[in-house]
């Protein structure tokens, strides 16, 4: 499978000014993101997640190491402006605060904004905007004012804007952090739909472990380094390590972990309520069977 993104030994330092010192935000970070995959990035506040995201979107120049976007190396002397432009066209970002991302006074104009900047003909923009609003389930609000929408709806409008630009990869930088439970549910459903149905490569930065448990792969950052990386099953199999890194595990895993410590034979890599209940019930049956 081809990779959307390859990062090798990436380090990045914010240079100090005046008497504020340099801050090294990323240290020897390496990972790959296969095309069409869903990757979650976890890490404590200040662990380097947003820095990494802005480098992958070419908003920040990589420091040392290698960054390859859709097969094109973006580091080194011979990177052209066209290369950077092309990478920016393919990788988009949705931010945390829904209010800071709105630029227009009508939803469909807001969604069209990015396309207009790309110089796309207006008939084509019309088609893309309608399709994007359909994808995020916001078509009926096309002529509404975005300011009156709920947080979750605003985020879906922001996502529509990124989809309309036909990004191949979208990075969500804590895009669910300010939302209520319904807003979070809607945005997560939209993200998964983009990934499953439209083949969009998704990178989701989040503090919600249940959201991360839905990814194909989780990368955990800690103090600018990759602490651990693997499938949700692998990463969440060691709750103590995550607690130490100021993170958490889904409640299903925590409950199973406690059962395991109490001597039950249970797996930890189950993240949905029904599956978790079935696993507990199986373990209890098994122990009863032994007793008789």
């Amino acid at each position, binding site marked *: 499978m081809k990779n959307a993104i390859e990062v090798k030994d990436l380090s990045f330092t914010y240079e100090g000014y005046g008497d*504020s010192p340099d801050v090294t935000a990323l240290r020897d970070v390496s990972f790959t993101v296969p095309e069409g995959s869903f990757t979650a990035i976890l*890490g*404590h*506040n*200040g662990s380097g997640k947003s820095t990494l995201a802005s480098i992958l979107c070419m908003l920040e120049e990589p420091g040392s190491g290698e960054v390859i976007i859709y097969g094109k190396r973006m580091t080194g002397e011979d990177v052209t402006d066209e290369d950077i432009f092309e990478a920016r066209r393919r990788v988009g970002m949705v931010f*945390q605060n829904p209010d800071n991302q709105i630029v227009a006074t009508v939803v469909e104009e807001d969604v069209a904004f990015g396309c207009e900047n790309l110089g796309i003909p207006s008939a084509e923009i019309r088609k893309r905007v309608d399709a994007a609003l359909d994808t995020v389930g916001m078509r009926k609000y096309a002529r509404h004012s975005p300011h009156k929408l*709920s*947080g*979750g709806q605003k985020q879906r409008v922001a996502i529509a804007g990124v989809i309309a630009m036909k990004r191949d990869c979208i990075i969500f930088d*804590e895009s669910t*952090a*300010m*939302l*209520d*439970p*319904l*807003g*979070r*549910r809607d945005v997560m459903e939209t993200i998964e739909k983009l990934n499953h149905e439209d083949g969009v490569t998704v990178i989701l930065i989040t*503090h919600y*472990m*249940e959201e991360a448990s839905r990814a194909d792969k989780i990368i955990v950052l800690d103090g600018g380094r990759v602490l651990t990386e693997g499938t949700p099953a692998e990463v969440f199999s060691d709750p103590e390590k995550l*607690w130490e*890194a*100021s*993170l*958490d595990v*889904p*409640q*299903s895993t*925590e*409950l199973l972990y*406690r*059962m395991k410590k*109490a001597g039950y034979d249970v797996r930890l890599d189950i993240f949905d*309520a*029904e599956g*978790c*209940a*079935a696993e*507990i*019930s199986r373990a*209890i049956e098994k*122990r*009863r069977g032994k007793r008789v």
Partner: protein
Amino acid sequence: MSEIVLKDVNYIYNKGTPYEVHALRDINLTLGGGIIGIIGHTGSGKSTLVQLLNGLAKPSSGKVLFDGEDLWEKPERVRAARFRAGLVMQYPEYQLFASTVYEDIAFGPRNMGLSADEVDRRVRLAAEFAKVSPDVMERSPFDLSGGQKRRVALAGVIAMNPEFLVLDEPAAGLDPGSRRFILGGIKEYRKKSGNSVIIVSHSMEDMASYCDRIIVMANGRVIMDGSCAEVFSRSLELIGLGLDVPQVTHIASALRECGIDIGRDVYTVGYAAEKLDSFCKKA
């Protein structure tokens, strides 16, 4: 223990203009004691409600009674309410302003006209509760990380020793470890001071772990009001209101379907584990 009573309160923004919003409708609540959580969809009126408690907002109709006294009857009561109900707004880190952390935390108690010694004592105690480490006291608050800034803002309100500590989404955007850290400090403050705490949050898991009572709001009204057990046992209604229950409550329902009934009042992982353990011992 002090008590705040909201009596038939309505709140209307931009009354009489085309932008009129009826944000709170016929609210009747008695607040005081323990840690009270307020949950509700975005726009349900949570932030408006908490701004009524310290006199930042004046009800369009109805009364706010502080220990039986009508807040809006006398201007000095409104002024006193700012200190009696200390409000930590959403994303308070953007409201820091002083040149050192110490000065920032000292601002509130100084405004209350306390002696320099008392101010100093309050600042140090508040810093301890809010987990602001003593060695950042002389630093500029702007050099701190987001999580630390949030705790400085919290300390600034705690330093006024408010009878009601009111927090609007105090842990939003923080990593799970920092959430535990800040909410743990708030719980400790509650325990040691005996003062009441009111928390607005979108995290059902946090509310379940820290609150003694939960108020559910929807479209400007109070829809439910009860213990965690009472509120979280109504999961279908909560989901219908755009809210949720902790994942472990879903797991307990699924277990019941499998014939393992550990009760309908399960909302923390620790309690679920305990109940499972006693279920197995009985069986």
